């Protein structure tokens, strides 16, 4: 955040450090503009008010993983970059619940404390100084159940990915959740003492953790005890929480404006220019797909789940594809293939384990056009598709090189019909006697003859005609 060390996951300890993030004497901070923009854009996406004048504060406390003996953060009600916003989250009954967002502020991460195998602890400062965006939900809390907490996290993560400000990998720590949980006695006005839960590395842990904590607190109260205000860690293996340290209510952070950092002042124009960079957000997109394309909630949900998936879809539609056909192909064949091979459809998603697929919206469009104009049959399309995935060639190209064109030649089909009729006297007799469905079998036989290439509809028509004459 305040130095120019690279941000990455993993790597040898203390190899991405500098005087600034090590907190060496004399080092000074200079804020990363992009981090500020990321937070502002997130604040806009979460319907927050923007602090047109915003400053950094020092939060003073001592811990070995805190190199300067203070953390640069943002204090105050209306000073954080974003404040007083909300996120609408689908609830179980099919409606929405509005979760209030108290503040979104920017701060820096600490180093990582690790236990040494031989005893004692060691610190790796690679992570110290990485920009952290903290989104704090409102108090008194709007989130009342573990399910709501999970749903909130899911929606928030989706928005963050849509905005491109975070990769949302809880298992890598690029997104963290620290719920503050308390119990309120039935009929009581006051909320109980809260505990903070840390080390939750997945949505599942968040849900289980909140559930466990709730039950634990209830058990404490029911046995006549008092809930201690503390920070507790989550143990995923045992699915239990454990006491970490007494919440430092004793700790006076002595916040004051950081004298090494210059205040931020934003103009309306600048904020609006950032607002213009916001993509259509997941919920809006989801509703639009249902309204404009008549999609079901499931279809719209699958398409908007990931912004690149939606992007692929929208590109296809922009190129002229039939939305329903296009989305069907995406959500069935394409999705299946990507799942099997681990390939992805956007460079942003590619890494050492996930290769970028050769399929572009153009490829899929090309294929669908061939289906729509009758050049190939549905079955042929699937074959071509498989070829396309491997070679990356356009459908028309693949078609030209093969002999997979749909056969719509009347003469050819008539000939096949005649042949099938000749070879299948019993079914023909059945048809003549009034069992009309039998035509399906006869058409099937022509399809077999043509290796699936005959235009099925045409076969149907011509077969009917031939049967009249038979």
């Amino acid at each position, binding site marked *: 955040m305040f130095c120019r060390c690279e941000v990455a996951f993993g790597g040898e300890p203390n190899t991405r450090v500098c005087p600034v993030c090590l907190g060496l004497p004399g080092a000074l901070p*200079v804020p990363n503009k992009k981090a500020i923009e990321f937070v502002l854009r997130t604040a806009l996406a979460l319907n927050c008010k923007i602090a047109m004048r915003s400053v950094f504060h020092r939060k003073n406390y*001592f811990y070995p993983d805190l190199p300067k*003996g203070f953390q640069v953060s943002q204090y105050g009600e209306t000073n954080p970059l974003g404040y007083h916003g909300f996120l609408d989250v689908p609830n179980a009954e099919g409606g929405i619940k509005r979760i209030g967002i108290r503040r979104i502020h920017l701060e820096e991460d600490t180093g990582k404390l690790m236990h040494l195998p031989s005893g004692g602890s060691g610190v790796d400062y690679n992570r110290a100084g990485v920009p952290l965006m903290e989104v704090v939900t409102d108090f008194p809390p709007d989130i009342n159940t573990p399910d709501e907490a999970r749903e909130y996290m899911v929606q928030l993560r989706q928005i963050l990915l849509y905005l491109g400000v975070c990769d949302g990998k809880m298992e890598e720590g690029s997104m963290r959740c620290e719920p503050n949980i308390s119990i309120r006695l039935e009929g009581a006005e006051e909320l109980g003492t809260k505990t903070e839960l840390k080390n939750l590395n997945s949505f599942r842990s968040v849900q289980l953790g909140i559930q466990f904590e709730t039950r634990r607190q209830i058990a404490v109260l029911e046995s006549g005890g008092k809930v201690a205000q503390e920070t507790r860690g989550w143990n995923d293996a045992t699915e239990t929480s454990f006491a970490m340290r007494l919440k430092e209510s004793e700790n006076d952070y002595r916040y004051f404006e950081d004298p090494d950092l210059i205040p931020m002042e934003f103009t309306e124009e600048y904020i609006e220019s950032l607002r213009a960079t916001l993509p259509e957000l997941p919920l809006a997109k989801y509703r639009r797909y249902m309204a404009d394309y008549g999609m079901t909630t499931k279809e719209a949900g699958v398409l908007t789940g990931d912004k690149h998936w939606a992007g692929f879809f929208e590109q296809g539609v922009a190129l002229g594809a039939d939305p329903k056909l296009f989305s069907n192909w995406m959500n069935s064949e394409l999705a299946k293939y990507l799942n099997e091979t681990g390939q992805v459809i956007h460079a942003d998603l590619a890494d050492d384990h996930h290769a970028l697929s050769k399929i572009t919206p153009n490829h899929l469009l090309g294929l669908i056009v061939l289906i729509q104009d009758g050049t190939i049959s549905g079955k042929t399309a699937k074959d071509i598709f498989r070829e396309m995935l491997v070679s990356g060639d356009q459908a028309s190209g693949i078609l030209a090189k093969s002999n997979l064109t749909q056969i719509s030649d009347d003469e050819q089909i008539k000939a096949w019909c005649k042949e099938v009729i000749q070879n299948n006297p019993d079914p023909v007799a059945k048809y003549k006697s009034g069992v009309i469905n039998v035509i399906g079998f006869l058409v099937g036989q022509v399809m077999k003859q043509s290796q699936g290439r005959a235009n099925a509809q045409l076969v149907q028509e011509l077969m009917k005609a031939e049967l009249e004459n038979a």
Partner: protein
Amino acid sequence: MLTELSAVELAAKLRSREVSATEVAQAQLNRIAELDANLGAFLHVSPENVLEEAANAQKLLDSGEGGALTGVPIALKDNMCTLGLPTTCASKILENYIPPYDATVVGRLREQGLVLLGKTNMDEFAMGGSTEKSAYRSCHNPWDLTCAPGGSSGGSAVAVAGSLAPLSLGSDTGGSIRQPASLCGIVGFKPTYGRVSRYGLVAFSSSLDQIGPFGRSVEDVAAISDVISGYDHHDSTSLPNAGMDNSGLKDGTLKGKRFALPKELFGSGIEPGVLSVIHETIDLLKKEGVEFTEVSVPSIAQAVTIYYIIAPAEASSNLARFDGVRYGPRIEGDGHIGSAAKTRGELFGHEVKARIMIGTYALSAGYFDAYYLRAQQVRAVMAQDFEKIFAEFDAVFSPTSPAVAFKLGALDSDPMALKMLDLCTIPANMGGFPAISLNAGLSGGLPVGLQLMGPVMGDENLLQLAYSVERAMPAATVRPRL
């Protein structure tokens, strides 16, 4: 004698090949070896490094790539990070600390081929006004070895006053360059806040600290200011148009210049001997055409108070990084908390601990508004008051220090008196104004400094005025006998 020459004179002789950089450096090293045991100006001198740098400087001179001060030796206060050289801030908590990077200012000096002579003595972490708070050795005023040189940049002042170096750099938070300059009879300059990068200056009070030069003449100080000033992207508080250009230094005149005299700095808090010398100077300058007008700045009365709230508050936070984990010695205690507390408790000196305590208190819950916030508000008023004065006047004129050099140990039992010595110098730091101290004469055989303060970014004008004032004062260039 080489060591009596000014930096500008040395630079000229170096350029004309009359002397070599090695000769110049060796002359200073010899004088240091001869005198510093009694002066205590330096904490670290590494002759091999010095001679190596001199040789490199000579290469620059030989190839014609030299700058204005190439080959000139300079001493640095030991709170500026020097790659490969110890930087202790005169504290035990940084004993044997060798920074892995150069302060930006140091980089600029190296680039220009100045020769880093060594690191100078100071009050621990720049907290003090006499250099008596150094954890390593005592520092003595060349005018009277039983007297303090002032502080916190005492070592840098003594180095220049005692001709151990033609130039030195110090840092000024509430007067730590100007006050020792005054007590040692030399020129000390604190530029506009933001014109000299603080990157690599071990922070005391971030919003007040500024690096500045000592020299035996305004011309020298102006020349080095051109080298050290400039925008630095590593320092967020660095001004965009920070670089100074003092090429017009000698073009000024005193005729018709308007100096403001704050009556609060001419009252009972100032020693009669000091006032007398300053008044003589005023008379002298009137003859040169300067118009003096008395003004009143009531906020000055709170100067010491707000300084002793704001600076310790910022310092208490800046010094939190000294926990024995990443650098410095560690004294093991009970777990990580015990070790940090023991390390800090034992290795910080008393004055540093006292300031951390008052700073922590002033920021703590329940007291923040009454002390820290209020002090920053008074600061705003003070800055505004002086800005109004600068709208009408060319400079503010006053004594630099209410007293001349005092005997070592004399103020031990009166810490408040020591603090009050910053009265005249604090306002410049509060508003970020440039300010300079020149020798105005002697009182009881000890130097009296006069201070000129100018508006923000008015450094070149201020130095021009200072140059003209210096020329008008025969006392300005008096030297101590060592």
